[in-house]
């Protein structure tokens, strides 16, 4: 009876998670959905506490410390660092799985309890997924925070090494299923999973970290579901499947938005080398780009009717979201209509730009997704590219030999005038030249985006 009640409580929690995800489909209800989801988590926790005879001491210690840290992190993190934050949180989740698996393994080898193969398999799987997630997420967060170089770290024989490590891990897991009582084998497996987490993620470029994080999160979901299978807990199976599905779909969305295969993201070493310029590009480079002064740019913006802002990773680096909004408000007061064109993989996380601009109080109906924005560029007097590069690179449309060929991009080059704000002629993440900058209707406004935007604001203020 109590057992059934607990199962029902888990089911209720799972349904609340479903509701949370469902309500995420509308910005108006998403926040309430998130709260419902968190109540579901509370129910799952309470059901566990009530149904099982547990010593509360340790749990309270762990929960207080964890909640405190979580609270502090969630408060302290700036919006621009959201990608890292999600990476770190994901890592802690993986760490928890790893630790639980380790503790369970201790119990597994207790001679007084009958040995069960499926429990063993679930433990090795959790160990591997947990360890890889923990270490991999740490590397990913480090890359995003630029503590670790964002460039892919490549060396000869890397794939062979990784294949070897995976093979070794699987061998260890098999050995452990046969001789679970060998602590050294288990410790080796833990070590191996941590090493794998590092060696698998380090060769991937910084901008591809969101794919890694979503994928790792999806794996942790599937590992949770696996545990659910072993202990026959439907709530866990459902929750794991939901997390798994969300990670997989997001990964798919990102890969499609880049027209790259998942294999290319994970093993391609994308963005490792700055491409050597082709003949055509050299000719372009020789011709040079047009520059625009802050004064001219301000006038151009102030006297236009439709402006579309195309933000990219540089906006997050410069933390210039508030300035963008300020400029837009100024322009709107002058009767200029300002909208935002958001590429699905602009920045370092899917939806990154939306969060940044929402923080700066930009109403979300003005944030157009790619499909809504692209037909509007034609009617646009000025397209203002703020720290975006790859996502506005026409090579994706024109140049079949380009590594980003086929990626759907923002059609900023259809606008009557294009202003690009960046600090230098350095390439974006993909490491390739961008012909847009040499376009006859395009002019560059060099400098840190925040500084340039502030200058523009001041300049627009002086007009009239």
């Amino acid at each position, binding site marked *: 009876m109590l057992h059934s009640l607990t199962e029902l409580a888990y089911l209720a929690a799972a349904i609340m*998670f479903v509701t949370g*995800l*469902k309500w995420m*489909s509308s910005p108006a209800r*998403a*926040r309430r959905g*998130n709260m419902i989801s*968190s109540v579901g*988590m509370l129910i799952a926790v309470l059901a*566990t506490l009530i149904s099982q005879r*547990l*010593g*509360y001491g340790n*749990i309270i*210690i*762990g*929960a207080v410390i*964890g*909640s405190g*840290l*979580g*609270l502090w992190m*969630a408060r302290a993190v700036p919006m621009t660092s959201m990608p890292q*934050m*999600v990476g770190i*949180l*994901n890592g*802690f*989740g993986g*760490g*928890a*799985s790893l630790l639980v698996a380790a503790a369970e393994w*201790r*119990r597994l080898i207790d001679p007084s309890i009958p040995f069960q193969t499926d429990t063993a398999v679930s433990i090795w799987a959790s160990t591997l997924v947990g360890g890889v997630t923990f270490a991999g997420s740490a590397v990913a967060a480090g890359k995003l925070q630029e503590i670790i170089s964002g460039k892919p770290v490549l060396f000869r024989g890397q794939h062979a090494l990784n294949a070897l490590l995976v093979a070794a891990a699987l061998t260890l897991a098999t050995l452990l299923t046969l001789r679970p009582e060998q602590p050294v084998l288990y410790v080796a497996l833990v070590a191996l999973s941590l090493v794998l987490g590092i060696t698998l993620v380090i060769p991937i470029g910084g901008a591809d970290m969101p794919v890694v*994080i979503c994928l790792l*999160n999806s794996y942790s*979901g599937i590992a949770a579901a696996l545990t659910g*299978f072993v202990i*026959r807990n*439907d709530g*866990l*199976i*459902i929750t794991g*499947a*939901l*997390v798994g*599905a*969300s990670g997989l779909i*997001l990964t798919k*969305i990102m890969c499609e938005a880049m027209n790259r295969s998942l294999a290319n993201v994970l093993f391609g070493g994308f963005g490792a080398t700055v491409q050597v310029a082709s003949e055509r590009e050299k000719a372009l480079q020789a011709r040079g780009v047009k520059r625009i002064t802050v004064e001219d740019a301000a006038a151009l913006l102030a006297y236009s009717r439709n402006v579309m802002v195309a933000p990219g990773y540089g906006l997050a680096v410069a933390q210039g979201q508030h300035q963008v909004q300020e400029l837009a408000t100024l322009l709107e007061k002058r009767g200029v209509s300002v909208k935002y064109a*958001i590429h*699905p993989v602009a920045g370092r996380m*899917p*939806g990154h730009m*939306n*969060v940044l601009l*929402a923080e700066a109080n930009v*109403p979300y*109906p003005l944030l157009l*997704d790619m499909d809504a924005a692209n037909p509007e560029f034609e009617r646009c007097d000025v397209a203002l590219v703020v720290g975006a590069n790859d996502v506005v690179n026409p090579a994706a449309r024109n140049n079949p030999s380009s590594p980003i060929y086929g990626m759907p991009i923002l059609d900023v080059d259809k606008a009557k005038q294009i202003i690009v704000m960046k600090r230098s002629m350095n390439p974006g993440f993909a490491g390739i030249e961008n012909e847009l900058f040499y376009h006859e209707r395009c002019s560059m406004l060099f400098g840190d985006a925040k500084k340039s935007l502030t200058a523009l604001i001041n300049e627009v203020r002086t007009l009239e």
Partner: protein
Amino acid sequence: MEGLVQGIVVFVLAMLLGVELIKKVPALLHTPLTSGANAISGITIIGSMVVAGAGATQLARILGTIAVAFAMINIVGGYLVTDRMLEMFKKKDGE
């Protein structure tokens, strides 16, 4: 065997449901979706609590306690950060 098939049924259904739900989330909210799903994956707290509160050995209980702390960071941090982001999305200026 029986239990396995039933587990598969539940898993497949939840997966299909998850896919339908996630596909409906607009690109606008993909970041909070990521962090929200991440928070849900903190469900590992259940296993962590069991180990922390009823682990067989002192070592297991210590590992479990750390696991509870880790999972709690994931949960509390995840839900709060998602909430912080969602709070910012407004339909009209200053609303």
